């Protein structure tokens, strides 16, 4: 017997079932007051479990000595241990890396974006796409290629080029300066195109009339760049600068791909690398957590100073 519901209802001998009372539970779940809470609840639950709880736990752990099966409260001892020569080395490496990458990844993308936005450059789409390509490969994959190109042998790409110019080959991964150079180069290479995109998007917002007005006043290209373009790029510059600083302090992979666990004389050790080494490899989680808390404080302070200096807290017109 396969009757369609329609023929059931219209057939006279079929008794129509009473219309069901609207389900109270469904009515409750469908009310405009409850629905938003249902929509955000998975997020809230995962936020509490996977973000807020670990954040609090990290601070608690940083005051503990954690060994399997025995956890002991040891006060500030982890923190007094953090400030040691190895940490200072990691911090200075990271700081140099942050300064270099931020300077490079703000200045060059602005210049390149302005040029890409102008009428001077042809084949814009091609240039934009090719500059963006490096962002697609993971740091591990691109780092592996860099490692092979900057190999120690005379025949590896970089040394080969130096050789043609009559310069002696370099042990890239074994000098402090060249180690830093490799990390900065890898980062700059990977993110240049992304930052260019940010600036290109911001350039679309600059009103064309301003340039026309400047033209009438007889402003040079450089003056137009300084007085018209740059002020409009300020918000996105602050944004790019802030995320570059934070990403720089969190750097780990660039160092890992060149030296894995340890670099000679810690030339490639970063703060997160030190956290990983102590917290995971040495299984000293309390100490690792303390490094993490110090790192977070550093990031907060630096971002805060940066935001004040760049005037992000100032109101319009001040």
């Amino acid at each position, binding site marked *: 017997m396969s009757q369609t519901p329609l023929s059931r209802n219209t057939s006279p001998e079929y008794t129509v079932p009473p219309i069901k009372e609207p389900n109270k539970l*469904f009515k409750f779940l*469908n009310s*405009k*007051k409850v*629905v*938003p809470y249902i*929509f*955000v609840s998975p*997020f809230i639950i*995962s*936020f509490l479990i*996977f*973000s*807020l709880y*670990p*954040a609090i*736990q990290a601070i608690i752990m940083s005051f503990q000595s954690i060994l399997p099966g025995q956890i002991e409260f040891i006060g500030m001892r982890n923190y007094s241990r953090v400030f040691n020569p190895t940490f200072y080395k990691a911090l200075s490496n990271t700081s140099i890396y942050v300064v270099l990458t931020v300077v490079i990844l703000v200045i060059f993308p602005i210049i*390149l974006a302005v*040029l*890409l936005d102008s009428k*001077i450059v042809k084949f814009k789409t091609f*240039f934009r796409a*090719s*500059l963006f*390509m*490096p962002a*697609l*490969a*993971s740091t*591990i994959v691109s780092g*592996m*290629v860099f490692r092979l*190109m900057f190999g120690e*042998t005379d*025949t*590896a*790409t970089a040394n080969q*080029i130096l050789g043609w110019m009559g310069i002696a080959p370099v042990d890239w991964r074994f000098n402090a300066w060249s180690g830093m150079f490799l990390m900065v180069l890898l980062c700059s*290479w990977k993110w*240049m195109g992304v930052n260019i*995109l*940010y600036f290109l*998007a*911001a350039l679309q917002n600059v009103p064309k009339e301003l340039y026309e007005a400047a033209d009438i006043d007889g402003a040079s*290209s450089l003056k137009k760049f300084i007085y018209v373009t740059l002020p409009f790029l300020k918000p996105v510059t602050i*944004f790019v600068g802030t995320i570059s600083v934070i990403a720089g302090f*969190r750097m*780990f*992979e660039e160092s890992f791909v060149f030296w*894995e666990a340890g670099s000679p004389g810690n030339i490639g050790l970063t703060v*997160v690398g030190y*956290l990983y080494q102590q*917290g995971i490899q040495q299984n000293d*989680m309390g100490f690792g*957590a303390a490094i*993490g*808390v110090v*790192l*977070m404080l550093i*990031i907060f302070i630096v971002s805060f100073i940066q935001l004040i200096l760049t005037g992000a807290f100032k109101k319009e017109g001040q």
Partner: protein
Amino acid sequence: MNKKQLKPVKWIVNIAFVIISFIALFPILNLILSSFRPASEIMRNGISLVFDPSSLSLNNYKFIFTEATTYWGWYGNSLIIAIVTIVLSLFFSAMVGYALALYDFKGRNLVFMFVLFILMVPFEILMLPLFQMMIKMQLVNTYTAVILPAIVAPIAVFFFRQYALGLPKELMDSARMDGASEYGIYFKIMLPLMAPSLAAMAILQGLGAWNNFLWPLIVLRSNSMFTLPLGLATMLTPYGNNYDVLITGSLMTIVPIIILFIFFQRYFVSGLTVGGVKG
């Protein structure tokens, strides 16, 4: 500057761009070229610019497709983790972003503050407690351990909220008058309208999950569970001579990303810029 003066400038700038583009593409082109060269030579010399063209062959590809079973295991792990992460994080983040943008409810600002909180606290500080949690839940060395913390995608929530703010609220009201349920309105009417933002975030989240390194490095323990970046990194030892897998394998990790990118390029750019410009 008049036109005559501009001409040499044009030339210089364009040539500079050709050079810069070449530098940007050089490592990738070098990787492609190297994938046809004997692994033994790469091990001895690194990637060198001068080589014997007659040594080019498909041997590395033959090897990786026939013998490198571990590599394809990593590939499978990465694909599973990336796909599940994309689906779950988009599903939950879009709901949150939509609710934050289009519903008035008590605690809305608090939820938005939660989002900003995760954006500000570096993952590295949460890492050790999360690792402890995974040990207690006996999830170490499972896909679940890699995926769970990624279900919260604050950047995606932020992005979806920005996007949903621009959707017409009147549509919701008229659908309500027609008797649609709130869930019907979301899944049948509003979510399809958010499709471009979903595409953008699918790529950003996918790229993040596919290339993620530190967290999988901590929670994945056995070689057979490794993701691609992890597996490839383990081959980078001073004694390693697996350059056939390393080179061709690295190249092939980029393939899914390129495919994703080609399909959604338009959205990818908007996905990158919305936070920076509108933010």
